[in-house]
């Protein structure tokens, strides 16, 4: 691959410059700040992308200006235009096209670059002094062998740093011994946890022992408690006998006493006497109650007969009740009759007064006046017609005024347009537009003329420059007289010596003369050859210059012709426009024509407006006439409505001058008053009828009272008093009837009581007989004697029972059994002795049981503690956590150590496989660069070994002891070896070098450039320099020299 052309649109200080490069050796020459380093960065940027924003290597130009440019590449039989411009991403927008201009995918560029990375390209293919010196930096930082990788291999530059990073990373995780690294700490903690767990021992076994021990203790405790319970039971039995001793003695005595009584007395009812007395008392009480009831019964029968004699006849009661009911039916009416009559009369007077306020004349005839709903509806229709007629007339008048305004407005617009039209120019628009086109052409001709004049002047200047003779023809070479004259003198001396006979001198002089003549001949021949070459080159340049002069003259003639044509057209146009004054400016002329054109356009617009106004004006006048007719019709309708209203009012005796709404209100009021007056008259008639009915009822009641035997002298005709009297008579009758019913009920009750008491007396007699039979006596005396005897026996039995209870409470068994045991134990003394023995035994057994229970409690507590202890689980969890962490750290450590091992192994692989060939190539190049001063390079595989060189004498010298220039030649040799290797393996790429030879002496620089020239046969070399002497060296190697000056884009070449 090679770069054919570079075109910078904008990159740092470079703007719109381009360079054409040759396939082989190229030199871009320029002073400091001419942009050489910028150009190096540009090539890198176009191929691999702009540097990040903010980086000094980005060379970004201000926003708005073009940023980036193009490289024309060729290789593998094809061409590729690579363009990079500002894009959304920081690396810029890349676009590729082939030789035909067709877009290409980005992979095409990668293919041309043989997949080389940006880093490798910058380190090895396109480098300056700083990159060259990086080898030295690496050599200082780490081993020389590492630096050798850096020089030769992508990625190896970072090898020392990577190794260091891995070493420190692994050491930060783990170290031998008792270090504080995290893995060491985790392992130590893990060991401690393990030891703690071991120290806890076999907890389940311990727990099982505790279980077994607890079980044994429980068994022992159970047997002790069992024995204790037996002893306590015996002790309790003896203690009961001891406590019941007194009861047992008394019980023995009373049992003997009770045996002396008749056994049947045990069944004698203790309440026999009480029951006898109770029954007899009850019989006596019934006897008394029966005598009292007979007396009360006789009195009640007498009272009933007396009351029945004072009752009214049933018919009288019925008549009295009916008459009183009728009068009470009119009760409310007769009480309020007077008040209602007075109220009705007052209301009628008030209505009359209200009507009189409206109109005195209406009072007498109001009730007959026609102010009903039909009359009011007729008035409402009449009033509505009056309002409609008035509104219609007002609307018609408003419409007439509006249409008059519209008509007047149209007349005014017509007048103004006519006046403006009369004042405008009458030339047609089409003619004026033609004049405007001619005026514009005239102005354009003037501008073209000025441009032609400038072009002609430029061509004349160029012709003038070409007409000068830039260089003189090479002069004819001088004759080598300086050698010819001494040769002739020597020849003459040789002839003279021969003549004098000195042959030795003659031979010497002869040879000397011959040599001089041969030398002169050779010199002349070489001079002639050089002259002939210079002459040929001169002739070639002169013929090219002549061709160029002829071309410029031809273009000048063409421009003259175009100017003449232009002048003829200008004259024609001025004539057409009628411009006599040749000095009149075309712009002024054009302005005049355009003004006339604007007036013509305005005139046409006014004419169209007048035409448009004619029809609306006619329509507006017709509209005004129609409105007038509608106003007249509305006026007629209103007059008819007013007449009808006057007729209505006069017919009712009302003033025709009243307003329509006042009439409506008056009619409504009169109708209301008329209705009220009629209602009052009706009520008064009803009151009169009520009064007559009341009087009739009162007379009937008075007659009924008299028939029932009441005197009416006190009551007279007062209905109120009459009603009170009748009510009193009826109430007296009702009370007498109630009293008769009460007496009958009382008699019935007394008869029932007497029957019940007879039955009770018979039952009491029967009970007494049964009692005597049951206890086996015949009378009261026998009953009382037997009952006393039975009570004595019961008292003794009760005492016996109390002692029995005492005994059984103390010994908790039947009294007879306890008595037998007591007797068996030897009575009170025997029991006391046995009791003392048992208490001593019990105390001993309780002590033993307490000891066993305490031990069992301790064992159970320990067992419970073990069962609930989560410490083992905690330790196991912590062990797992720490183990996981340690395992992860161990993996990290192993990874980093393996990384180092991998690097070392790869390194050995490289050294064994590739380094020797590369070293041989580098040694050969270094020998060439140093003109054979050094002949070999030695690099040991040892990590800390030094880089050494072997000089021509076979001495081994450390690279560190070499001068800076020689060291840089050594590094250049390594790079060139790598380049050769890469080109051989993958293919050639351009080599770009930025003044890497500034520290070389001229001879070494020449050698270096010779090496580059030799390399340029296989791959393109592009070198930058600011030194004229370097330029000369490159020229001597046939390089194409390009001026790298961003101020211009001239390209100069030198063969």
């Amino acid at each position, binding site marked *: 691959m090679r770069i054919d052309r570079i075109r910078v649109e904008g990159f740092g200080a470079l703007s719109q410059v381009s360079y054409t490069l040759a396939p082989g050796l190229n030199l871009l020459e320029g002073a400091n700040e001419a942009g050489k380093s910028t150009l190096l960065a540009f090539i890198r940027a176009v191929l691999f992308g702009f540097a990040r924003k903010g980086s000094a290597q980005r060379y970004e130009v201000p926003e708005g200006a073009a940023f980036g440019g193009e490289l024309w590449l060729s290789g593998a039989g094809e061409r590729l235009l690579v363009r990079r411009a500002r894009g959304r991403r920081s690396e810029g927008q890349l676009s590729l096209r082939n030789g035909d201009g067709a877009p290409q995918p980005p992979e095409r560029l990668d293919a041309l670059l043989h997949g080389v990375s940006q880093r490798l390209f910058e380190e090895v293919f396109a480098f300056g002094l700083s990159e060259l010196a990086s080898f030295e930096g690496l050599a200082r930082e780490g081993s020389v062998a590492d630096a050798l990788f850096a020089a030769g291999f992508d990625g190896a530059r970072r090898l020392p740093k990577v190794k260091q990073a891995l070493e420190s990373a692994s050491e930060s995780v783990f170290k031998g011994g008792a270090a504080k690294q995290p893995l060491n700490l985790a392992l130590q903690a893990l060991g401690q946890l393990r030891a703690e767990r071991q120290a806890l021992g076999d907890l389940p076994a311990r727990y099982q022992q505790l279980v077994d021990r607890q079980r044994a203790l429980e068994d022992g405790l159970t047997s002790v408690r069992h024995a204790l319970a037996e002893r306590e039971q015996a002790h309790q039995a003896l203690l009961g006998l001891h406590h019941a001793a007194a009861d047992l003695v008394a019980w023995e005595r009373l049992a003997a006493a009770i045996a002396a009584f008749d056994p049947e007395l045990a069944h004698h009812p203790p309440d026999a006497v009480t029951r006898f007395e109770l029954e007899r008392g009850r019989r006596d009480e019934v006897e008394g109650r029966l005598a009292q009831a007979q007396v009360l019964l006789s009195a009640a029968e007498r009272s009933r007969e007396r009351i029945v004699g004072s009752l009214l006849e049933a018919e009288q009661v019925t008549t009295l009740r009916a008459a009183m009911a009728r009068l009470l039916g009119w009760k409310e009416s007769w009480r309020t009759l007077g008040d209602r009559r007075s109220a009705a009369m007052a209301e009628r007077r008030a209505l009359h007064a209200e009507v009189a306020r409206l109109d005195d004349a209406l009072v007498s005839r109001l009730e007959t006046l026609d102010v009903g709903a039909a009359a009011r509806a007729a008035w409402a229709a009449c009033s509505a017609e009056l309002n409609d007629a008035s509104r219609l007339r007002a609307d018609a008048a408003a419409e007439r005024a509006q249409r008059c305004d519209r008509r007047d407005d149209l007349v005014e617009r017509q007048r103004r347009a006519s006046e403006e039209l009369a004042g405008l120019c009458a030339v047609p628009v089409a003619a004026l537009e033609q004049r405007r086109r001619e005026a514009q052409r005239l102005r354009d001709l003037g501008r073209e003329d000025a441009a032609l004049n400038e072009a002609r002047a430029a061509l004349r200047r160029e012709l003038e420059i070409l007409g000068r003779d830039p260089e003189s023809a090479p002069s004819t070479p001088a004759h080598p007289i300086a050698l010819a004259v001494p040769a002739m003198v020597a020849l003459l001396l040789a002839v003279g010596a021969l003549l004098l006979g000195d042959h030795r001198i003659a031979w010497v002089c002869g040879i000397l003369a011959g040599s001089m003549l041969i030398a002169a001949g050779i010199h002349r021949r070489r001079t002639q050859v050089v002259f002939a070459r210079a002459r040929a080159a001169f002739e070639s340049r002169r013929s090219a210059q002549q061709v160029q002069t002829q071309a410029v003259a031809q273009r000048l003639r063409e421009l003259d012709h175009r100017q003449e044509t232009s002048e003829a057209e200008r004259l024609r146009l001025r004539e057409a426009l009628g411009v006599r004054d040749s000095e009149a400016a075309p712009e002024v002329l054009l302005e005049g024509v355009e003004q006339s054109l604007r007036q013509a356009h305005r005139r046409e617009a006014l004419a169209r407006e007048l035409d448009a106004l004619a029809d609306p004006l006619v329509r507006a006048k017709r509209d005004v006439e129609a409105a007038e007719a509608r106003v007249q019709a509305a006026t007629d309708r209103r007059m008819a409505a007013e007449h009808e209203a006057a007729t209505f009012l006069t017919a009712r005796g009302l003033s025709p001058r009243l307003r329509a709404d006042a009439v409506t209100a008056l009619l409504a009021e009169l109708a209301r008053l008329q209705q009220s007056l009629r209602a009052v008259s009706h009520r008064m008639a009803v009151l009169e009828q009520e009064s007559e009915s009341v009087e009739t009822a009162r007379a009937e009641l008075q007659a009924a009272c008299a028939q029932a035997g009441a005197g009416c002298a006190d009551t007279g005709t007062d209905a109120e008093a009459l009603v009170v009297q009748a009510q009193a008579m009826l109430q007296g009758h009702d009370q007498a009837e109630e009293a008769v019913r009460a007496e009958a009920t009382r008699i019935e009750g007394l008869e029932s009581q007497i029957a019940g008491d007879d039955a009770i007396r018979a039952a009491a007699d029967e009970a007494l007989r049964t009692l005597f039979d049951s206890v086996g006596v015949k009378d009261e005396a026998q009953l009382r004697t037997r009952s006393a005897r039975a009570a004595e026996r019961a008292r003794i039995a009760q005492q016996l029972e109390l002692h029995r209870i005492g005994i059984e409470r103390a010994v908790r068994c039947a009294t007879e059994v306890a008595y037998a045991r007591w007797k068996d134990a030897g009575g009170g003394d025997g029991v006391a002795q046995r009791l003392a023995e048992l208490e001593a035994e019990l105390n001993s057994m309780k002590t033993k049981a307490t000891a066993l229970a305490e031990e069992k409690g301790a064992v159970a507590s320990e067992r419970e503690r073990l069962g609930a202890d989560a410490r083992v689980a905690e330790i196991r969890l912590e062990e797992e*956590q720490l183990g996981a962490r340690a395992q992860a750290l161990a993996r990290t450590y192993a990874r980093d150590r393996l990384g180092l091992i991998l690097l070392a192994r790869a390194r050995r692989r490289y050294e064994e496989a590739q380094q020797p060939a590369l070293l041989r190539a580098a040694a050969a190049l270094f020998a060439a660069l140093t003109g054979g001063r050094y002949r070999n390079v030695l690099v040991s595989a040892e990590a800390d070994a030094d880089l050494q060189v072997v000089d021509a004498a076979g001495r081994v010298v450390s690279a560190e002891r070499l001068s800076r220039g020689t060291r840089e030649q050594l590094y250049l040799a390594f790079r060139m070896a790598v380049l050769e290797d890469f080109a051989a393996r993958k293919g050639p790429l351009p080599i770009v070098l930025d003044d890497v030879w500034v520290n070389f002496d001229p001879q070494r620089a020449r050698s270096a450039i010779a090496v580059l020239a030799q390399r340029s046969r296989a791959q393109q070399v592009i070198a930058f320099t600011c030194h004229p002497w370097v330029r000369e060296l490159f020229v001597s190697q046939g390089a194409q020299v390009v001026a790298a000056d961003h101020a211009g884009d001239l390209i100069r070449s030198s063969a």
Partner: protein
Amino acid sequence: MRFRFVHAADLHLDSPFRGIAADRRMHGILHDATFRAFRRIVDLCLSESAAFLLLAGDLFDARDRSVRARLALDAELVRLSAAGVQTFIVHGNHDPLSGQPQGAAARPGIHVFGAERGEVVVVRDGHELCAVQGISYPHERVEENLAQRFGRTRELFTVALLHANLGGSAAHANHAPCTVADLTGRGIDYWALGHVHTRAVHALQDGGLAVYPGNPQGRHVLEDGERTCALVDVEEGRARVSFVGVDDVRWHALRLDIEGVPSVEALFDVLEPQLQALSAHPGPRAHAVRVTLHGRGALHRELALRATVEQLEDQWREALWTRTPQVILESVQVQTRAQRDLAALAAEGGWVSTVLAEWEGLQHSPAELRGLWDDPDLVRLERALRAVGLRSTAEASDAILQDAALRVIDALVEDDA
């Protein structure tokens, strides 16, 4: 006659979870998980009216020396026994007979098989339901094929209770190794197996079934997903198996692709949908997760720093713990790669291609790879790991070598910035 029973194995009661850097707040859940899972098994027996419960070894880890494990086991089995449900137990490699304390009293309704094959006939309501045979491990290591000692002895549905490695599962120690052929033709209707923690059903040619119920509670991330016991219905001599989830803390291995993720902080947003999906699991009380970051992306360089990952773990652990249900973060694993094409690097040549070639050579030479662990530093490391009983790093030699190679390549071709 129809009946049903429950088959569980590998309870590992009170055994710790592996690898969780949990703080004290989480200990309660982690400690109780195995116990609660076992309680669910017992609840299942009671609710499903199971005739008996089979426990196929590794009820706890003898080396844990946990008293709590034994007490909890005892308490739950007494509960079963009180309800009339029998329990049959064999011991496995983690809880061999030799590791049991001497003198433990027998309990009614709980039958522990000894080191010789035993058989018990299960009777219900006066009818013989089935015969249960079983063998316990006498000690930790049993290399004999114990399956060969089993065989039908009567015309009853016969169950064999055994802790064994069927088919030589590489993930588990090869105790009592046997094959499907060894189990076939012995007249056993149901092989109730334990030892392999992943549930599996093997249908035998003789019509029998060999079943691993799985362990009821996963204890590390490789035991992720639902953990179960087996509920077995027997009708007319045929067994039908269904697995019932009983785990209390469920493990999940979550993977997170870093491609396109702009920042370390944004990773949690990417993780969120996977966390929300955990709520869809109704059974467990909490979840334990390992988050593995993988893929290529701009975050790779940042994630390569141990401090970044540790900080991320701390932040996420706190955030996950406060969720409902609670989520316990085991760890964040980084398996990310830089955005580079190894094939292109190899093709480009240079030093990196030499490193790649060396890596490839080691991948194809196991002996040479093993030889790398002869490096004195690694020897020292391995000795230290062995001293505390940790696994050798050489067990994962391939993966570690890959990590090392990729890390070296990343560092070698890293941008200068």
